[in-house]
């Protein structure tokens, strides 16, 4: 799937995603111990020890219902948090990203996945997402313009905490 990192398209994604199926954790051995592995929240909870013992990078994928407090104590072990956008109308991920960055001080990659399209890229970026995964049929080079469509920021956010009156 096309991937944008730091407002640029990247060709290589080092991460492999393994999803649980109906609550049953996937087979972790299918991914090399040294490669970067992204798992969902239920897998992370079930196989935490095993996951933390791997040598590759570890990422967790959460949805809008996730309680970030439960993630907070393991956050320094993670290099990636993927936040799922289930639909174009759902905006929980924006607040989750801000809490991760501003409140929990997470410095790793925050990746938007799911319903990720042109018209939300700029707000995602502003809220602390540095990576966006876009489905093939909605991707175009042109969409990178989204980041520059509006250059004025009235509010502080994760990209720049200063509201306009402090800039």
């Amino acid at each position, binding site marked *: 799937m096309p991937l944008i990192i730091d407002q640029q398209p990247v060709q290589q994604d080092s991460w492999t995603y393994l999803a649980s199926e109906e609550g049953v954790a996937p087979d972790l051995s299918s991914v090399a111990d040294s490669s970067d592995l992204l798992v969902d929240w239920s897998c992370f909870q079930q196989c935490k020890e095993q996951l933390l013992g791997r040598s590759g990078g570890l990422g967790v994928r959460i949805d*809008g219902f996730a309680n970030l407090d439960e993630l907070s104590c393991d956050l320094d072990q993670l290099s990636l948090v993927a936040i799922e956008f289930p639909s*174009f*109308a*759902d*905006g*929980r991920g*924006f*607040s*989750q990203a*801000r*809490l991760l960055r*501003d*409140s929990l001080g997470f410095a790793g990659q925050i990746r938007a996945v799911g319903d990720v*399209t*042109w*018209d*939300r890229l*700029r*707000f995602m970026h*502003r*809220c602390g997402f540095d990576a966006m995964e876009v489905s093939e049929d909605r991707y175009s080079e042109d969409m990178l313009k989204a980041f520059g*469509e*509006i*250059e*004025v920021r*009235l*509010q*502080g*956010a994760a990209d720049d*905490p*200063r*509201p*306009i*009156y*402090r800039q």
Partner: protein
Amino acid sequence: MYLYNEREQQLIEQRVEQYRDQTRRYLAGEIPDEEFRILRLQNGLYIQRQAPMLRIAINYGLLSSRQMRALAQVSRDYDKNYAHFTTRQNVQLNWPELEKVPDILADLAKVQMHAIQTSGSCIRSVTSDHFAGIVAGEVEDPRPWSEIIRQWAALHPEFAYLPRKFKIAVSAAEEDRAATQVHDIGVHIVRNDQGEVGFEVLVGGGLGRTPVIGKQIRPFLEQQELLSYLEAILRVYNLHGRRDNKYKSRIKITVNAMGIDKFRELVEAEFERTRGGELRLPEAEIERVKAFFKAPDYEQFDGDDASYLSELEQDKDFAIWVERNSFAHKVPGYRAVTLALKALLKAPGDITDVQMDAVADLADKYSFGEVRSTHEQNLVLAHVKQSDLYSLWKALSELELARPVVGTLNDMICCPGLDFCSLANAETLGVAEQIQNRFDDLDYLYDLGEMKLKMSGCINACAHHHVGHIGILGVDKNGESYYQFTLGGSAAEDASLGKVLGKSIPKEQVAEMLEKILSVFVEQREEGERFIDTVRRVGNVPFKERVYATNH
């Protein structure tokens, strides 16, 4: 009046171009319908029954004469030579073409107007008291604070996809003209025991399917932390508000389901974390915004103007208009004037391009070039010299903007209903007409005293019928428009929700029903009592007995 600086101007211009590109991509088939629906709503564009409808923001109801002329111009260039003022102080064009909307917005941006967040599931434009800055006894002018909130809310990256629409109102006077108790957040500017000015914050009020009066979440909030606190409320709502059911997604439901104490706990925890941070308002910023709302250069008068007093003596019609349609100003020698957009046989809130241009000229001549729009779908010229009132009255009479009905039954609030709104269950405009025709005896209306009649064409309650002294709700019965009455609601400082009177009635009986209700009122009324107070005293029963009595 607040003026955008270069960067704020750049923001609204870039927003127009962004929207132009969204429209282009939509028409090219690159954005699916459902997505474009959300995008266009965030920029004020509804698709109505007959045509798109564009809602343009008038922040806290304040307009310059220049902006008024621009509205007249766009209504000529792109619409059918009229516009419609709404209950949230905004203005709507009922017939724009979807393809032309970017051009309309570009024209409006030249006079610092826009349609940012006038609809959709985001923070809507902020409303306030239309007599802000001129009422005696106001703690502080609420407009600078409304503007500060507006700036924070405009294109806020975190809150553009909320569970549902989110409305904030600000008020600072004893009389609440902004309906703050039925908003998602109501901000009251108050003074505490130490004499400091800050905010009482209400949360979770609202109308619609489940009407609720807002609850106090914080009795006193320090001024500088206004935005940190609002952001904390919005963040909690954005994360916890329901998204699975449109009818349960407003913050009032979140607050009720969780309980106000639990909700407060979450908000306060978030606030504790962020207060004192970058969002804290520096004194200089508060002062900067306040400087835009300085009082105009009033002339000094000792007492009342002599010519005005004699005109009042000599011309009874003028005296009635002054009594009905003008309001005391805190500066001696001035009054605020309400322009009633309640012409006979026209939708409440409608105004033609010719009237708009004329109002702009009158504003320049008599009121420092400023016009205000009200929650009650009227306009206000806020600073008129007593000595100018007579000529202003003459001019307004010619424009048909001087009907002395403000505060009466005929000053009703009414949504567009079936004629224009795709969500409507019933007609409203024809019913408004029926009522106006039946109650055309002004003396009778005056005798009835203060009366707030509000009529919505469906349960979405855009005309706030639950908080009308008399509320009328249009419902659909097998394809026919029927009407349900509620009595005893109020949106003012004594806010309450009206109670349903009984079963709904067909369209042709509405005026008759009102007549019966009013006859009971006249019988039951104690000397000088307002309708709402009589209803509160005697309850719905006497009314019910009369209106539903079967003819033997």
